[in-house]
């Protein structure tokens, strides 16, 4: 836990934690609303958004790319809704049509444009580059208080932290509304809560989390974090507040364990090279969900026969 740790591992671990928490928080509500896969859809359409932003601006910079990705996410949500309404198609299939088509469009644009000189490819979009976010100027724990060294922290860290805090604030602000609208939309409307706008806002919030996290940690972590920690938490608690706390704990645990296993795990097996941290974080979150499915105190369904009816 010396200087090496601060220089190489601290920043990625923190980014991983922030990204995981930012995704897991809206994930709780998405899962309860049966919209769990919207995170999957968003993380696919981020690619065309980023490519379009690159084609317009010609540079690989964070802000235009995040704007492009957010724009693509909004377009995708609108398209899904339009196809659902206009074609009378069930939500899952509408989602499948939209995100695969947009993703294909993104890959095509990427192939057509000259991106050979810049670091922009599909694998990067999937896996992120968590391992490369090194804090060069750090010399040890004391650097945390050193303004000169702090200035050279990879910019993904403050960005991700801001987004994470923003999402925490949003969830706290709209907590009562979200809670009521998630469990009983009709009741929420009767109370005068704009349930439709709230649902759209939730999806947009999820998109913001996905877009911010995607740059640093890649799509896989985003998809997994939207679903695995909240789903595992759902099996641990019957209270929404408790569930959210569990999901945050699981998200942090996945991020830390995932990074440690990816960075140091291979060394324990005598291998020299680290494996993909993003992939490992997703895997760990899945293992946690698996354990929750097997041993979670509230894993069983209340009442039977629902699935038979479905």
């Amino acid at each position, binding site marked *: 836990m010396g200087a090496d740790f601060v220089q190489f591992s601290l920043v990625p671990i923190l980014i991983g934690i922030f990204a995981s928490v930012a995704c897991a928080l809206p994930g709780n509500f998405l*899962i309860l609303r*049966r*919209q*769990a*896969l919207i*995170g*999957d859809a968003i993380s696919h359409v981020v690619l065309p958004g980023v490519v379009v932003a690159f084609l317009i601006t010609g540079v690989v910079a964070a802000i235009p790319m995040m704007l492009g990705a957010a724009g693509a996410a909004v377009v995708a949500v609108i398209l899904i809704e339009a196809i659902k309404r*206009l*074609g*009378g198609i*069930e939500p*899952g*299939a509408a*989602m*499948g*049509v939209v995100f*695969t*088509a947009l*993703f*294909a*469009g993104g*890959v*095509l644009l990427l*192939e*057509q444009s000259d991106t050979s000189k810049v670091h922009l490819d*599909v*694998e990067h979009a999937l*896996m992120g580059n968590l391992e490369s976010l090194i804090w060069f100027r750090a010399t040890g724990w004391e650097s945390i208080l050193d303004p000169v060294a702090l200035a050279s922290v990879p910019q993904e860290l403050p960005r991700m932290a801001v987004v994470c805090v923003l999402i925490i604030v949003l969830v706290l602000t709209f907590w009562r509304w979200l809670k009521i609208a998630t469990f009983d939309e009709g009741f929420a409307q009767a109370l005068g809560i704009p349930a439709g706008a709230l649902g759209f806002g939730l999806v947009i919030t999820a998109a913001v989390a996905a877009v911010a996290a995607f740059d640093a940690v890649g799509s*896989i*972590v985003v*998809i*997994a974090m*939207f*679903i*695995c920690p909240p*789903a595992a938490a*759902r*099996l641990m608690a019957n209270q929404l507040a408790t569930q959210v706390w569990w999901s945050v704990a699981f998200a942090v645990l996945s991020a830390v364990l995932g990074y440690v296993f990816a960075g140091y795990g291979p060394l324990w097996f005598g*291998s020299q*090279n*680290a*494996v*993909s941290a993003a*992939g*490992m*974080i*997703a*895997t760990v*979150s*899945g*293992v946690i*969900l698996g354990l929750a*499915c097997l041993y*979670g105190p509230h*894993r*069983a*369904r209340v009442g039977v026969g629902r*699935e*038979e*009816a479905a």
Partner: protein
Amino acid sequence: MNSFLDALLLNAGYNAALVAIGAGLLGFAAGSSGTFLFLRKRALVSDATAHATLPGVGIAFIIMVSMGYDGRSLIGLLLGSAVTAAIGLVIIEWIARRTRLAEDAAIGAVLGTFFGLGIVLLTIIQTMSSGRQAGLEGFLLGSTAGMLFQDAVVIAIGGSLVVFVTWLMRRPMTLVAFDAEYAAAMGYSVRRIDLLMMGLVMGVTVVGLKLVGLILIVAMLIIPPVTARFWTDRSGRVVWIAGVFGGASGYMGAALSASAPAMPTGPIIVLMAAAIFLFSLIFAPVRGVAAAIIRHHRFQRRVHRRQGLLSLSREEPIREKFTLRLLERDGLIRPDGVPTDTGRAQAARVSRDERRWDIAREVHQDAGLTGRYDGLTPIEEVFTPDEIQEFDRRLGPPVAVGGLA
């Protein structure tokens, strides 16, 4: 354009022809087998299946290399991908059945976890066979550049098998897709048929992995069935229409990608399918958007015309601009708003129809017949002539409408 035609006619070289035929077959198999999952409202299961193939590819590669074989053997890789995809499907089914999590959460969880594990394995492989380019990344987005005859044979055999089983099991699968409880009452095992549907999709996924890649094979399983649904309301036809759409987008997409540089096959095929979808969404005869708009306008015109004629018959002034335009265009009123002879005649008819309906609703209390009263349907379409005669008897003698003719 010429090169596109060449590719369409299989004249663009051996590899291009191979890819086009393979993609066409794959598209047909994917479209027809994906239909039942779509009709069962579980289209995104195929998404999880596709992503769950990745760790299998990695594991198969590692095992084959560690046993001293060439890790790139397609059959081996596909077998591996089938194993993990099957495990993923069983886990989805288990989570949805045994825990209180909904199926979409189970799908997403399996998708994310398996894909993450797959990426971990890919990074291990990258460091493992340092000198040799494993080329497993091709499974993400597909690669057609090095397509061999053997690969086309794998697609042809696997695809035909899937189509054959789909055809064989179409009845029980249709039954389960539309009414699972009825199917259970008929003695079918819903769980087994569900597993079969997912198994077929898994088969297509595995077979198509090399060609279009695991992210885009999902599109070939979802888009053609959704498209086909626009063109028919009969489940038996949806399957084959979806197959044809899938096959067409596969074949044409492959031809298009062969005819121009920097046109990756997988995405082009998917965009082709998406284009057919878009066309169907707009122009399909009954369920399409254009048809819906036309229907809406027709309905609007009928309402305005009827209400306008009723106003004429009661000699009430009409102020609605659209109604006035409509009546004038049809020669029912003059520009100054005075009804023409035809207008008066039609107004009288509509008025009579309305009064007959009034009587009909008094006489027949049952909603089956009088429930069809919507202010638009002519009474002749609902009641028989002798019934109408009875209504007329109760109505009394005819009265002139809108002054003397």
